[in-house]
């Protein structure tokens, strides 16, 4: 192959320089990773989940390591939408990388208010609805396991914003296709698959859970097979639904696997913790993968699995 592969892609109403996006909750508000690489090297980023009011989050300990993975129960700690708009967004607006804002509400009304508050603000490239957080009592996964609830919240937000609307789904369901279909019909521009698996870790000597919240969300390489399966399942069942795939992506080949399974873009989460340059490295490695495989445009990988 001659020349560098064309890396741009388009997903859920956004054109991206390349398909690698930093995932929510693992990239802070973007600025935390700016010392480690130029954010223009990646396709985009998603902020930590933002709620109407500031949230302290759960009691510590909030994180623990597991085999090839980790559990977290942060509890959606965040500065609240007003402080986000005042303190975080101006910096993001100055970056040459689109930022999606991950939203967390405890009710449909809260999601709507958040979307209204952010609509039209400089620096907000897309909204990602987090209806899949396993670490909060209200909202979160409670919404995300119920297709009707997902449809309602998606439709309600759809009505108040013209921003690209991504809906982030939980893997902790019997039938991901039902939830995905509900979100698409209600007006989602893209589906993000997957959030964390509900898990738990125990310190046998202390006879205590390792997380103060007892249960938490499992992420990292351990869950990659589950993420790939869900992306493939949903991509087959809903042809044409734009998908952003994530779960355990650590290198360019992992990203290529998600694209082949049917994702139009990917997000890199936990890998940033093990290597603060992970997102940029994955983007570079994906380009190299394309070059090595004679793929002239990365978009040719999307859904290209021979199965």
């Amino acid at each position, binding site marked *: 192959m001659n020349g560098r592969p064309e890396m741009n892609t388009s997903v859920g109403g956004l054109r991206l320089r390349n398909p690698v996006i930093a995932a929510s*909750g693992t*990239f*802070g508000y973007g600025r935390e990773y700016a010392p*480690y690489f130029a954010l223009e090297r990646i396709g985009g980023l998603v902020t930590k989940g933002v709620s109407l009011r500031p949230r*302290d989050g759960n009691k510590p300990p*909030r994180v623990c390591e597991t085999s*090839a993975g*980790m559990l977290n129960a942060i509890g959606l*700690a965040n500065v609240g939408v007003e402080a986000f708009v005042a303190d975080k967004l101006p910096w993001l607006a100055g970056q040459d990388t689109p930022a999606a804002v991950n939203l967390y509400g405890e009710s449909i009304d809260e999601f709507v208010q958040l979307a209204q508050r952010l609509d039209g603000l400089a620096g907000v490239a897309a909204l990602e609805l987090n209806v899949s957080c396993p670490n909060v009592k209200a909202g979160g996964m409670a919404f995300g396991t119920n297709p009707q609830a997902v449809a309602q919240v998606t439709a309600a937000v759809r009505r108040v914003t013209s921003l690209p609307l991504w809906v982030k789904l939980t893997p902790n369901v019997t039938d991901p296709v039902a939830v995905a279909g509900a979100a698409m019909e209600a007006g989602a521009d893209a589906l993000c698959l997957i959030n964390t698996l509900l898990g738990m870790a125990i310190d046998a000597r202390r006879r205590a859970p390792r997380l103060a919240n007892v249960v938490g969300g499992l992420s990292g390489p351990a869950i990659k097979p589950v993420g790939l399966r869900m992306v493939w399942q949903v991509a087959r069942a809903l042809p044409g639904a734009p998908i952003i795939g994530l779960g355990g992506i650590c290198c360019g080949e992992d990203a290529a696997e998600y694209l082949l399974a049917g994702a139009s873009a990917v997000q890199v989460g936990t890998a940033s913790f093990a290597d603060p340059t992970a997102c940029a490295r994955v983007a570079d490695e994906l380009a190299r993968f394309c070059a090595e495989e004679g793929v002239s445009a990365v978009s040719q990988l999307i859904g290209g699995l021979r199965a």
Partner: protein
Amino acid sequence: MHGAAIVGQNRQLARDVFLLSLQAPELARAAAPGQFLMLRVTSGPEPLLARPFSIHAVEGDDVGVLYRVVGRGTRLLAQATAGQRLELWGPLGRGFDLALERPLLVAGGMGIAPLRFAAQRLTARGARPRLLCGLASATGLGGLVEAVDECLTAQSCAVSWVTEDGSLGERGLVTALLDRALEGVDGVLCCGPMAMLRAVAEACGRQGVACQVSLEAPMACGVGACLGCVIPAADGGYLRACQEGPVLPAAAVDWPRLA
């Protein structure tokens, strides 16, 4: 900085205590006492996360890490050999405020790790620090004791040992000696087990001496992004050990919630 550092040496000081030196010029230049680094103990995926370690010493281009083997990651680290490359990033977090003339450094066990570097910088800027260092027992820790004595004495920082079993220095707990040791001191820098930090903070409070504590918390990212490493704050909410800490004024910490 983020990148690979070359292992200079990885010297065993005691059964489970090692002193690692890393060739990391950029890190060495930027590091301040009390800051830490994130170190990947393998090049493979297991364990997944990097481990936080205090910066124990800086000598030219070399950064020293003093660590105890407590689990999988440190067990792997103990196998690192000279010349090997390890991924790391840092310096991270907020270190000690060193604007003191007669500070007392209080270490419990491995709490000596960040305090040695603090002593180095304090004497370099003309302060006269003293170190009070507590151990459960000095038995089997001869190498560590020697290393601490040697380098701090060279920096004309007086060292007093306290051991619970009396095997070295006075017998007892660091905190029992504290009221006396605090005389004439214009600030305390403290690192060690949580119970000790709290007792030292209380003693300092009683005597009106400003106390800075270096705290530990399980960390995922080390850079302020994951919100995993939080410490309950005195004014409600939480502080990130990796960002607002690891060194905090004792008064900023909500000690009851920390238990």
